[in-house]
């Protein structure tokens, strides 16, 4: 298999987004008839590299050679016609059309008079679905299919374009075990036909289960590439996570006090199950796990934006029920949401309005909002967090991602919380702001606040946390103290090995 003909070469690809070096001088070689795993942590640059390949991003530097010819793809439709298809985590499907209509969307076979030739469409769809070994009636509506089957429809679509390269971005993240096995069969069938498949994943069992070759990325850099059979599990984990923990994580010693927040047996059917942990004053508790492990959902339940099926939440020993985030904020529990544009900010409103939004009552005196109080609080946090804006009246959509995140954090701090929950507080922001936010978290802990931090970045979790809890598929698989934690152990819990197995 190793001597198969090379179909694609990506040479020295370099991709930057506003100071963030997403892909740094990465080369990648793909051969016919192989399943090539592209692995790395979240944010390692896997998806970005593939988006460069299909023409969604144009790289700052680097070269693409496809079937021996240097190419430059400007958009996905060009790449698709050339024979490269990417299947995204979010499918681009029209839910209210049938399977066959989706497969041939935009290039429907026509009759002589120019109307759609459904008969031929049906026949062609049947042939393609049969070819990849999938039993779906082309006439069913996509909305009626399971996620797994929708994914197979996407694959069928790729095949119908006569794709020689098919890229699958974490294809198994929403599938059950049997569905995964069926997907693997399809992948093997495609390989047997000589197609090259890029399989983006960070699940080890899948890499060893279906892939022939593996390329490891870390922090946007190329780390290693080899045949899967020449590599073992622990080497792979080591290459995925090994890094030096630098001054990026200015952890200060803080006095850890009493338990303030305690959750017992939190369950939300089908999402997470029996989650219990506690959080002490002055402590930073890291909540780790892979994407889709249920981390965000658990904290959403704590602040009241998600309904619980079972479980109890205690604050300073007293049982509380938060029906909505407003209840939690009134009790001093507030969250920095994961998606700042969707849940964190009103983008079209000013910096000032956003900072004050969660604690407007502080500016209220004698029945109306005082300008001087508004100024006082907004400028206090703009200075404290070093928010770079023309004035406090600047509209948030004109700020950089890092400054937007600081505005969200300013809003949270202005509400004077005791328990602060941060969901991916540094995702997609520049290195400088990231370090600022880490410093601030340390200071908050020293001040005696309790901090719960969700992060997909292992270094962040290791660098900042006093204690780490790890979720895997909605279950709590491990708890680690700062002294005993390392990347390998977190990763093992995160991929579902329970505590006993590790020791």
């Amino acid at each position, binding site marked *: 298999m190793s001597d198969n003909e090379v179909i694609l070469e990506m040479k020295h690809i370099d991709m930057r*987004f*506003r100071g963030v070096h997403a892909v740094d001088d990465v080369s990648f070689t793909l051969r016919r008839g192989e399943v090539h795993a592209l692995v790395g942590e979240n944010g390692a640059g896997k998806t970005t590299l593939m*988006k460069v390949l299909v023409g*969604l*991003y*144009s790289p700052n530097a680097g070269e693409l050679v496809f079937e021996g010819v240097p190419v430059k793809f400007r958009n996905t439709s060009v790449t698709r016609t050339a024979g490269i298809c990417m299947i995204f985590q979010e499918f681009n499907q029209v839910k209210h059309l049938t399977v066959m209509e989706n497969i041939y969307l935009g290039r429907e076979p026509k009759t002589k008079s120019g109307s759609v030739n459904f008969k031929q469409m049906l026949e062609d769809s049947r042939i393609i679905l049969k070819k990849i070994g999938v039993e779906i009636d082309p006439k069913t509506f996509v909305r009626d299919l399971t996620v797994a089957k929708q994914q197979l429809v996407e694959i069928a679509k790729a095949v119908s374009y006569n794709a020689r390269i098919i890229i699958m971005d974490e294809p198994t993240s929403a599938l059950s075990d049997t569905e995964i096995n069926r997907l693997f069969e399809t992948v093997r069938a495609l390989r047997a036909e000589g197609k090259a498949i890029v399989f983006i994943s960070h699940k080890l069992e899948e890499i060893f289960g279906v892939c022939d070759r593996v390329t490891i990325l870390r922090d946007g850099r190329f780390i290693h590439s080899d045949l899967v059979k020449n590599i073992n599990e622990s080497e792979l984990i080591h290459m995925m996570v090994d890094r030096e923990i630098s001054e990026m994580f200015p952890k200060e010693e803080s006095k850890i006090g009493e338990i303030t927040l305690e959750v017992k047996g939190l369950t939300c059917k089908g999402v997470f199950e029996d989650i219990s942990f506690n959080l002490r004053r002055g402590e930073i508790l890291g909540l780790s796990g892979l994407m889709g492990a249920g981390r965000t959902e658990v904290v959403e339940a704590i602040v009241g*934006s998600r309904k619980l099926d079972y479980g109890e939440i205690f604050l300073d020993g007293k049982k509380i029920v938060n029906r*909505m*985030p*407003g209840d*939690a*904020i*009134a009790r001093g529990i*507030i*969250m920095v*949401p994961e998606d700042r544009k*969707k*849940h*964190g*900010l*009103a*983008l*079209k*409103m000013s910096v000032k*309005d956003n900072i*004050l*939004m*969660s604690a*407007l*009552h502080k500016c*209220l005196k004698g*029945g*109306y*909002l005082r300008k001087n109080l508004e100024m006082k609080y907004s400028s206090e946090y703009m200075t404290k967090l070093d928010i770079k804006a023309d004035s406090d009246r600047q509209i948030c*959509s*004109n700020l950089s991602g890092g400054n937007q995140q600081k505005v969200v954090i300013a*809003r949270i701090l202005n*509400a004077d919380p005791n328990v602060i929950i941060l969901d991916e507080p540094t995702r997609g922001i520049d290195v400088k702001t990231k370090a600022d936010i880490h410093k601030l978290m340390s200071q908050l802990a020293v001040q005696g606040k309790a901090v719960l931090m969700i992060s997909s970045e292992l270094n962040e979790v290791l660098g900042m946390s006093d204690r780490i809890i790890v979720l895997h598929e909605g279950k709590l698989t491990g708890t680690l103290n700062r002294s005993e934690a390392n990347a390998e152990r977190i990763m093992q819990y995160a991929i579902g090995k329970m505590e006993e197995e590790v020791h």
Partner: protein
Amino acid sequence: MGILSKTRADVSAFGVKYKLNNYGIQIGFVIIFIYLSIATPTFFTYSNFVTILRQVACIGIATIAVGTLIIMNCIDLSIGSLFALCGITAGLMVSTGKEGLSLPTFIGIGIGILTGVLVGLFNGVTVAKGKIPPFIVTMGSMWITRGLALILAHGMPVGSFPDPFVYLGTASVDKGNMIPWSVVIFLIVAVVMDFLMKKRPLGRYIYATGGNEDAAIAAGINTARIKIKAYLIEGGLVGLGATLLASRLKSAAPALGQGYELDAIAGAIVGGVSFSGGIGSVWGMVLGAIIIGVINNGMDLLGVQAFYKQIVKGSIIILAVLLDRRRTGRG
């Protein structure tokens, strides 16, 4: 371009383009104003201005009412029908005619406003708790309220109002008939609503709810409650506007106010309220209502036929939204 294309380049606050995008409506208004002053002998007179303001007052109150909802990213299509219903309930209270109850004027005004508040309550609760799009809810209540108006008035106009009731809509503060009471009430509504939107938490929460409802909820705002409150206020204001109109017209017909919702919405949009919510000011809405009034008045003075008026009005609304789109970067 990828993710980079999402952020717009900052526009210099001194550029012509910036001014045109942000003050286009005001600049257009000044041009229309100057043109009408030159083209017609009667436009630039004090008595004509009073006429315009008198005509604008009732619909202007409704403009502020619906503008507040649009800022919240909601809408009320039932305003026109509500004008009829509130006018009729108020009229029935005070009317000395066969159907009327001959009650004192203040009860009539109170009932007119209360009717608006009750319909607002219905709209607000259905939108906030039923989680039905406001467009659908208020389209339904548009028919319901019109039906109620027809039933209550037996399909006939309510008239025979006593003098004190008529006084409100027709009389002036001064003897020279220069400052009509209705205009004073319109101004008071504007001042109060401006205070509410700028200086009370409720106003800020209305902006936040319209700006990004998900973020507002995450920030601890009970957006359902905010929506209900806003609809209550809106209904009350429409009730007040309707009572004033009935008083000015000396009658309330079940067909009253047809198309008023569109005039009110147009005024708010022309006045700079973003149709996607989160942006707008009360004084902008006042200006918008006056612009619509001036255009109506100007076309009358110029002798423009009624058919053409509609085309002009429609074009202005589209133009205003086009400007809004350019200003906010999206629709």
